[in-house]
């Protein structure tokens, strides 16, 4: 079984490798994402989810005292590992109960598609795989477009948690999906800085501002200031003389709270065998370890720069439609965010030279 191998796919101006780890039950990983012959990302993954439920009458699923699952890598508190499914496995409760839908081999799992650009959209390269997690299914999907952007996505499917006993019987909950992003702008690590954007007013100059992140730390989203983040090279410039960067915008549909305490964590690369989400949730089913163990230490934005690793989270508050559309199965519901180039890509109009 070649789980753990790296598989190359190309399209839409991208070359990327995908991998499903052998040991971690942590879903689909993307490695060595290159656009137009230049490195963008060393590794990207979505290794765990934290899922708090309305309570207390959950029927033991999830169990108290936290009533909150940690799913995926190093699963805890009643959560489940991400079990790799054949891509043909049905979106229903059946794969929960039947191991015949498990992928015996990693190449049974993903679907890779290359879609040409059209009158409205860029060309895309998409890698998608599904994973059973208890009664749920999580779909991990990474779309790479010919504008140079990456669109990581997660879908929720399978069947509703059937165990809660109170009213309503199918409990609302929040899926908090955590992504680890090791961006290496033009491959020039460790010479990147992380910056945070703030829209202050419409009065220029100074209406919009990028500030350097001075140390490893946690951030909250802030729609009032259109907060976003970027990883910017301090050494590699485009032909216009601007430093190359990739920006991350998080379209949050639910806020941070007791269990999912932040929206972005700025950390540094400490290896590919550690800090993949292990031990998160140990204390109280929250993500507090991202702040207390991972995003800890100095950065060097004024001197050498760093090899920046970001953790970001996207959320979906799920109020089950158990008397209607979700009675028999959960139609896949996607949440996503975008990682977009700034001063990195050279684009041409469609029909021109070299673009989609």
């Amino acid at each position, binding site marked *: 079984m*070649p789980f753990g191998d790296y598989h190359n796919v190309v399209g839409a101006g991208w*070359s990327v490798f995908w991998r499903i780890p052998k040991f971690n039950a942590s879903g689909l990983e993307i490695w060595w994402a290159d656009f137009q012959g230049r490195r963008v990302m060393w590794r990207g993954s979505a290794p765990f989810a934290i899922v708090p439920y309305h309570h207390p009458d959950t029927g033991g699923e999830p169990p108290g005292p936290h009533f909150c699952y940690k799913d995926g890598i190093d699963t805890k*508190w009643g959560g489940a590992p991400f079990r790799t499914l054949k891509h043909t496995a049905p979106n229903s409760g059946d794969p929960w109960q039947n191991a015949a839908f498990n992928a015996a081999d990693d190449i049974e799992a993903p679907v890779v598609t290359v879609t040409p650009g059209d009158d409205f959209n860029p060309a895309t390269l998409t890698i998608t795989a599904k994973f059973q997690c208890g009664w749920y299914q999580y779909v991990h999907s990474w779309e790479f477009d010919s504008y140079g952007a990456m669109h990581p996505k997660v879908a929720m499917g399978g069947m509703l948690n059937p165990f809660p006993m109170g009213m309503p019987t199918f409990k609302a909950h929040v899926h908090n999906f955590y992504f680890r992003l090791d961006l290496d702008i033009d491959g020039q690590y460790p010479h990147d800085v992380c910056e945070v954007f703030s829209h202050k007013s419409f009065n220029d100059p100074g209406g919009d501002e990028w500030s350097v992140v001075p140390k490893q730390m946690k951030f909250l989203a802030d729609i009032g200031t259109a907060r976003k983040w970027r990883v910017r090279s301090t050494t590699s410039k485009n032909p216009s003389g601007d430093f190359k960067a990739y920006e991350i915008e998080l379209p949050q549909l639910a806020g941070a709270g007791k269990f999912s305490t932040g929206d972005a964590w700025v950390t540094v690369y400490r290896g590919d065998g550690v800090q993949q989400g292990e031990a998160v949730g140990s204390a109280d089913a929250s993500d507090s370890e991202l702040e207390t163990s991972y995003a800890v230490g100095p950065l060097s934005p004024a001197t050498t720069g760093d090899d920046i690793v970001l953790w970001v989270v996207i959320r979906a508050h799920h109020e089950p439609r158990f008397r209607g559309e979700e009675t028999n199965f959960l139609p896949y519901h996607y949440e996503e965010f975008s990682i977009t180039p700034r001063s990195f890509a050279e684009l041409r109009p469609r029909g021109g030279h070299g673009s989609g």
Partner: protein
Amino acid sequence: MPATSKAAMSDSTRRMLSVIAPLKKREEQAAIKSATAHLAGMLSDRYRVFGAELRIEKPARPRAAPERAIAVVVVDYGNRRTLEVITDPNGKVLGVDERAIPPAWSREEITEARAIAERDSLVARVAKLKGVFVSEFGPEPARDNARRIGLRYAVVRKGRLGAELLHAIVDLSAATLVRIEQLSVNPNRRS
């Protein structure tokens, strides 16, 4: 390599293509053999080799190619720890670490845990009910670092869940059933 990939792939990636090529059976076997030999004397009498996979770490300098290394994961139940042995492609041991990430439960472990749980008469009775199936989950963390697994016994009727019957928490390190949590059947549930 298709022509399109040459334009899209960076020089950095192209330089490491041989390093990140799929793991060969020969490499896997050499790594596991070396790892188990290296750990002899360090392991308790109850351990399990989970297998091997490539481990590619980022090199210190961007222009350097990474090293092709193989990680062999061994769960040592008696000593309540997970070890990771890193070897080169020829099986030479490069290092041993206590692994921060416990591996997901293997099929063999789930089978073993069920056997342990179903020594209990109640669990055994539930396991024989018509339509029952078992799925695994992660229990609360064990303070003594024991490798634990949760087993959820539930019943499905007519393709819909009829009832969840019990949780059994099994300590694979001690090969014991830690506890059973009996769960009530939801009277409102359709079946």
